[in-house]
């Protein structure tokens, strides 16, 4: 296995601007420029140092338009992972690393920006990527509906207990309640409210679904050599895998592993590339568009199986600092906020720097599991050690 990418690049700065949907104080491009400058200040670099960009999920902000405000001299790299969903989030780091390692760029901003007034509802944009008359004819027009079908079979056929959904949501809210930047700050999940919430698409109730925020998130990636001389400790990109494998994709319900999140081949590649195993992962930042897909992602990445999922996906086991599998230590998409998942990547870096609101003791390796259930997906491992 070629592991030429391993620990050769590192995140040196992060920036996050998040607002309640519909309340961003400026247009999407302005929010993004703010977040880029925040990330540069975090890294201790001038914004004009940036010479590349990578993104995912049909982001509408063409990097060339950002050049004047950032004072950039050269745009050397601008790429986007295919796909409308959050499946490409980790893959965007692979694009950035490829540029840096091959000498095509030195300092790449990985970003995602979303302000509803400019880019519309995310859920509609994601589905617009897939809508055809097979799907329209049965009213399957939102990601929640498609994901609910997979979730229903997970419960009814594979016997995953419904309680696992609640355990994951509750852990997300626990972390979010302790994170001043989170939408759930100061409020843990009200279990009665969760259980009695209005139904969205069975088996999902309101609190099983991520809700969209306005905002932008940015992570600055550069070579490990440059990173080591910078303001904050480097958080290395240890491995990344993207795409899919035969039997999964835009297949009109004919995916082989129907109730999975599609990650098994991606997780296999990631573990082979890095030499790490699920037991080596100290903390997981899990893109959960919906509760069930978060659980499917944990199964796909080897943390549990249909048989023992109830032993692993337990509230006490999923929370920092005491749980063995701390998940979404910022609150995740459900309770921190949802800017198409970019907040989960930022939390991976903050956690490994020791800056998280919910620190995991002695954490060295953090898995970033990208958007589950999308036709193409991606995952990455970040580390604060190279050994």
């Amino acid at each position, binding site marked *: 296995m070629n592991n030429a990418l391993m620990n050769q690049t590192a995140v040196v700065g992060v920036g996050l601007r998040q607002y309640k949907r519909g309340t961003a104080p400026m247009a999407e491009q302005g929010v993004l420029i703010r977040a880029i400058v925040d990330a540069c200040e975090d890294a201790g670099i001038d914004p004009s140092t940036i010479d590349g960009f990578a993104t995912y999920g049909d982001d509408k902000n063409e990097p060339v338009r950002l050049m004047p405000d950032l004072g950039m001299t050269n745009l050397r790299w601008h790429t986007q992972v295919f796909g409308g969903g959050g499946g490409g989030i980790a893959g965007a780091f692979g694009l950035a690393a490829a540029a840096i390692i091959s000498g095509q760029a030195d300092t790449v901003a990985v970003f995602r920006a979303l302000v509803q007034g400019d880019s519309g509802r995310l859920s509609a944009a994601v589905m617009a990527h897939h809508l055809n008359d097979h799907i329209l*004819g049965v*009213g399957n027009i939102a990601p929640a509906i498609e994901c609910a079908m997979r979730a*229903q079979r997970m419960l009814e056929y594979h016997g995953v207990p419904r309680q696992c959904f609640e355990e994951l949501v509750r852990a997300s809210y626990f972390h979010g309640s302790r994170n001043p930047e989170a939408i759930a700050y100061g409020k843990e999940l009200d279990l009665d409210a969760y259980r009695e919430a209005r139904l*969205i698409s069975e088996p999902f109730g309101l609190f099983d679904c991520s809700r969209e925020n306005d905002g932008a998130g940015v992570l600055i990636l550069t070579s490990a050599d440059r990173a080591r001389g910078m303001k904050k400790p480097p958080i290395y990109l240890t491995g990344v895998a993207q795409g899919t494998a035969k039997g999964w994709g835009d297949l009109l319900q004919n995916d082989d592993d129907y109730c999975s999140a599609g990650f098994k081949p991606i997780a296999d590649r990631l573990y082979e590339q890095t030499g790490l195993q699920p037991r080596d992962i100290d903390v997981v930042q899990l893109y959960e568009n919906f509760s069930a897909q978060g659980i499917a992602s944990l199964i796909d990445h080897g943390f549990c199986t249909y048989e023992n999922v109830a032993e692993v996906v337990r509230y006490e086991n999923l929370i920092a600092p005491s749980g063995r599998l701390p998940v979404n230590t910022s609150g995740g998409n459900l309770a921190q906020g949802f800017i198409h998942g970019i907040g989960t990547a930022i939390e991976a870096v903050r956690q490994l720097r020791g800056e998280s609101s919910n620190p995991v003791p002695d954490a060295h390796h953090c898995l970033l599991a990208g958007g589950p259930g999308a036709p193409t997906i991606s995952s990455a491992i970040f580390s604060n050690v190279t050994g």
Partner: protein
Amino acid sequence: MRGIGNDANYWAGLEVGEIRLPQCATCETWYWPAPFRCAKCGSWDFTWKTIAPEGLIYSWTRVHHPFGGLESFSQPFVTLSVELPQANGIRLFGMLDDPRAPAIGARVSATIKTTHIFDRDIPALYWTHHE
């Protein structure tokens, strides 16, 4: 119709009240979505076979939230994935068209009806429980 892949014959079938699905003309492999090329044997020729409108519920969801676009739907409604044993287990989207509670594995039969969405009429499979 705005389908996916090489599926014009599927829509043509629905127009005359039939479910037609593609099988490689050379190696007889069933496919869905409809391909242009059989990756197994390299053939570009497909035979569209008419399949009896009978299947098994593979999964389902009952949709409660009024997502934009569902204005003409009577909610809640149940949308389905249905497995067709006669076509090597290919799964098709469908609507549940009777009030009985769905269950995975239940036997269902289809009628072709029209769904009105985004100001268009789209033919779709409406399934009822098999008596």
